[in-house]
């Protein structure tokens, strides 16, 4: 990445999807931009850019965060998992499959964020009922399908 002279930079060490990276980045770069523009992991989407919609959800040290509200420097020496990372894991790939099976996807732009939130929810609450699933997904917006199919997909995966 080319960094203009008047910007300050930081040498970031971070593990993303199990792979270690060391990159010189501008200090004000958001984690979202680091993932998309530096690592070219474009599965993480940006919609609102202000933490409302959850499309940019990733796991930072195991916890869901909006990557538009975290600076890349804050992920220094941490572990990040994006949708590209969960797809390699058998269980969570199966979670992606239930979204497909239930037609819980229309345009698909919100889906990576939804899958990460659902994966974290099911890890912490394997017995989550539909009410808990809805509560666990409050930070993810879908503007196409509505939420019924998404909740059904996750409930079905749980069985």
């Amino acid at each position, binding site marked *: 990445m080319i960094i203009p002279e008047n*910007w300050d930079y930081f040498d970031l060490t971070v593990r993303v999807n199990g792979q270690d990276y060391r990159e010189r980045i501008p200090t004000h770069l958001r984690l979202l931009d680091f993932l998309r523009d530096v690592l070219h992991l474009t599965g993480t989407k940006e919609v609102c850019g*202000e933490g409302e919609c959850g499309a940019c959800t990733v796991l930072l040290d195991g916890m869901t965060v909006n990557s538009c509200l975290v600076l890349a420097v804050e992920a220094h020496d941490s572990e990040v998992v994006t949708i590209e990372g969960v797809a390699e894991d058998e269980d969570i790939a199966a979670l992606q499959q239930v979204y497909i099976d239930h037609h819980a996807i229309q345009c698909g732009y919100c889906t990576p964020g939804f899958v990460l939130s659902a994966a974290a929810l099911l890890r912490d609450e394997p017995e989550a009922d539909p009410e808990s699933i809805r509560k666990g997904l409050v930070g993810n917006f879908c503007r196409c399908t509505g939420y019924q199919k998404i909740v059904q997909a996750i409930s079905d995966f749980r069985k």
Partner: protein
Amino acid sequence: MKYHLPSSMDEYEELIGRMGAASYVILAGGTDLIAGFDGGRPVPEHLIDIKAIPRMNGILEHREHVEIGALTTIEALRRDEHIRNHFPALAQSCEDFGSVQIRHRATLGGNIVNASPAADTLPALFIYNAMVKLRGIQGERVVPVQDFILNPGEVDLQRGEILYSIQLPRSECRSLFHKLGLRQAMAVAVVNYAIGYTIRDHHFTHLTVAAGAVAPRVVYLKTFMDAVADERIALDRAIALVDNDIAPIDDIRATARYRRTVLKNLLLNTLTELLADDRKR
């Protein structure tokens, strides 16, 4: 933007000393601060990330009070058994706070320093008579949270100071928090309030109510709660006194008139239910 990550209070103070008059911004959870770093707003000259300063994250139980590190996340507070049992209004205010993702990053200290008139944790902190511990190059001071909040977005924080922890004195009162938003999640409150109370012989012998989003700062409903505690007037008449304690405005979420009406209705409903529950025992 220079990024600083002091690893101790000493290092932080040394950094502040070295910076002279340069402008800086403190970074905690960043959920309010970083929205806008995509080019919308100019980034600060210096950013001081305080997350590596030890002992600022966690809950310590003392005999007289509970001390919450300013960097304790909203999600940690929401899940904490001790907070749920002893300071339920605070735990409830963390329940519908933002989203899961926001709660994983947002901190109690950040919610206070951000000083939003609609801040979800502030009404609870007001009724618990919370004290904020401030540390900086001039030493340490402890001030009541209601004196710390000055105006929307403005707090009594001197240059070089940070909000270090929040102290909640132990109390025998019961308490609760209620929020009305346009939807349940991810919504700034239209009104919110916390109530601290003691009921004896089917009356409120003690009542503290603090409400948010109805004035430039979170406010105690002083004339109302005094009237109720004195038993000078019945609840359904006293409720009109709430109008003296608040100064709401019209904004994108609600009109001032709606806020007045809905706060009085919700509050009357809550208090009536508390008394009815008490009679059933």
